[in-house]
């Protein structure tokens, strides 16, 4: 297990370095000068050159990259070009907000998706099964942006139960409760697709497990159904379900960007978009690095969880 962890961590570091170089190079290919954008239409060439020099953008690319990359291990993610503030002071709060939204969605996804799939499997080919899987298929096919607009229209505008967007009340921003009220609709919107996917996956695994030889044997031996499900089936479906939930967690971090736009949730996605449109290189670098890091960590945690749940994968690792 230790060797497995060390190997995975090393890969993680390599992946992150690769990602940062790739992002850096891609941004160099994109036409557009952040200083031009900063100074607007009226900028003269002379002034642009002056500010470029001040920001160090006239140095060789390799120097710019190394300067940034060597700061990262020290926790220095650089300064935002346009905001003149440390990248971390802008990005960390935004990352936190994205995590809150992704966490809320993941919770909905687990609380609804897994039981829904299990109930459907337990009642295979009944109306319950076909009905819930039909809804799940629909959910998996819905564009997030559209779902968000429909949800806002019904629950915020027509019924007035929840605010339309944002994370806090505009006039009197409150604390935890205020955030919770604002979290409900965006997390539902972000959860639609993952919930549907997890439900279908849970159903499939459950159906397979219920048809396994040992389950037939247990039933034939007169073991109570409750024990069959709880003790002998549940554990078998957990590894694939944990796997898919891990994948969905990664998807959520990417997918909530659309939800952040519709619900004006002040997360990483919106910030990254703003930074990309301003060509703010240090912000883009750090933002992408964060997302890659979270993705890799979630995958790692998933793999460890699966290894703990399923001794067979542990031996392979």
């Amino acid at each position, binding site marked *: 297990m230790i060797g497995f962890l060390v190997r995975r961590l090393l890969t993680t570091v390599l992946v992150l370095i690769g990602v940062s170089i790739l992002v850096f190079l891609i941004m160099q290919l994109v036409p*557009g000068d952040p200083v031009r954008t900063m*100074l607007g*239409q*009226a900028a003269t060439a002379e*002034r642009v050159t002056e500010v470029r020099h001040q920001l160090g953008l006239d140095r060789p690319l390799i120097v710019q990259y190394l300067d940034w990359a060597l700061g990262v291990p020290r926790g220095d993610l650089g300064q935002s070009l346009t905001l003149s503030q440390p990248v971390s002071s802008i990005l960390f709060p935004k990352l936190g907000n994205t995590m809150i939204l992704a966490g809320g969605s993941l919770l909905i996804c687990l609380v609804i998706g897994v039981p829904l799939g299990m109930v459907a499997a337990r009642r295979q080919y009944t109306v319950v099964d076909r009905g819930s899987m039909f809804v799940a298929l629909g959910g998996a096919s819905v564009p997030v942006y559209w779902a968000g607009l429909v949800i806002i229209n019904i629950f915020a*505008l027509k019924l*007035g139960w929840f605010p339309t967007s*944002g994370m806090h009340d*505009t006039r009197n921003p409150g604390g935890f409760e205020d955030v919770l009220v604002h979290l*409900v609709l965006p997390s539902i919107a972000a959860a639609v697709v993952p919930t549907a996917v997890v439900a279908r996956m849970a159903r499939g695994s459950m159906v397979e497990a219920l048809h396994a030889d040992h389950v037939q044997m247990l039933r034939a031996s007169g073991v109570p159904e409750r024990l069959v499900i709880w003790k002998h089936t549940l554990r078998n479906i957990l590894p694939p379900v944990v796997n898919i939930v891990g994948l969905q967690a990664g998807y959520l971090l990417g997918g909530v960007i659309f939800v952040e736009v519709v619900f004006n949730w002040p997360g990483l996605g919106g910030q990254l978009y703003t930074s990309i449109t301003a060509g703010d290189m240090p912000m883009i670098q750090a933002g992408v690095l964060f997302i890659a890091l979270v993705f890799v960590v979630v995958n790692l945690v998933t793999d460890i969880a699966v290894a703990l749940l399923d001794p067979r994968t542990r031996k392979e690792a």
Partner: protein
Amino acid sequence: MVLSGRRFRQLFAVVIALALLAACGGPSASSGASGPPRSGGTLAIGIESEVDVLDPQRAGGWVSWRVNRQMFEPLVDEDLTKPSAETAVPALRPGLATSWELSPDGTVYTFHIRPNVKFHDGTPLDAAAVEFNVRRMWDKSFQYYDAKAAGQTTFVWQQLKSIATPDPMTIQLTMKQAFEPFVRLLSQGGSGSTGIMSPASIKQYGNDNVGEHPVGTGPFKFVDRVRGQRITLARNDDYWGTKPYLDKVVFRPLPDPSSRVASLRANEVDMIAVPPPDSVASLQQSGFQVSEGAPPHVWFLSFNFTDPIMKNKLVRQAINLAIDRQGMATNLLKDTVKPAYDVQAPANAAYVANTEAYGYNPDKAKQLLAQAGYPNGFSTTMMTSVDGSGQIIPVPMAEYIQQNLAKVGIQIQLQTTEWISYLTKWAQGTPTGVGWAQQSWGMTTPYWLYIVTSSSLKAPNGPNVGGYSNPQLDQVMQQAITATTEAAAVEKWKEANRIVTDDAAIAPIVNDKAPYILSSKVHGFVSASEEWYDLNTVWLS
């Protein structure tokens, strides 16, 4: 059985109950009643994008100046209490200078600083504070010189030769030559501004951090900023002028247009900027107010003078006549804009309506094309952005032009780019093969024409992106700039407009009306002829 049907229903019931409980804190609707202005309340404004830094000298974009302007004031200001319908060009009024004089030769400006004004941090305003600010934007040898602030305000300070403070409340700015546009330029914002900041705050936080702790003299002072969520300002009870009615103002960035409309309908904000054109009528029917003005906002095309076809004046004139400006304003943009009939906007003292040159006349356009040697038209490319500050809806507008020009035989291909890349490309100068590049811009000072057409500012050195060069125009504009009275300058600027129009160097297309949608409880909001507004007169019922 893991979850029986009953348990499952119970679970759902709990989830719904929690959701309902949470909803109790949701918004509620309120209605307005008019009467005498009332003090108090918080005005929440849904703005179209995140604000740049709260450092008025550094900040780019109108959105940022709309916020910064409530906290910072220049020496000379524009009176924004009169709507465009009453006053086409906002009058200049004393800001942090109570009065000013110009030497007979037009080179020395003497400003008398307003006495007994304090910055929000309690430090006094005096000539030394003003000098500190000017040097920050202009004097490379100054300890607090800021290249970003200098880059934004280049055109304001380009003629400044020296600064003197003959007494603690007087500042003298000496120009290299007479520079008539100077006073009006002091009142401008959007590309930086000359809003005066507390020198103590700059010394304390440094040039890079002072934007996080903005300290000015304006009617509102800074409370907090949570990026992506809000900027909160509170009334400055020690304000030297008329104190605002509002206790607080919250600017909330809502970049998604449908979110903006939804937030307004749900009473989460009291007013929104840049409503989607299609939503204006239905919002009005629902009881919301529409406030429109005539800001100096020109959506225009700069013809490419390095292109062999575009060099032909008849071709440029034909294009101007082939574009149905009124049709675009009414059919495409639902009258949220007005057709533009001059290179300057109506919010500019030098405005001269010229429907002869810019009216819709496709038959004459065809004749001109035939005269120019293109009886069957030609093909070219139009450069435009897909989005960006003040760009309205550039791609559908470009497509409208494409259809108009096809009717006279000119086939155009659209080259669309997102804003940051576009701005860089645009500033490099229009490449050969591209007929013209689109932009939206404008100022209340006629000097704007110099910025976009002067041969000394040809791209990539300056914003004359079409590379237009006309010695006669340069001479007239020079006379306008060095005039010693405003009246004389305006006459020269009008002459300059006529030269640019006769030469068809630029095709103005529409002037934005910059509509705002307000809830019925908002009173006293004025859409003056500027890209920004004051909130001193606004009150809530």
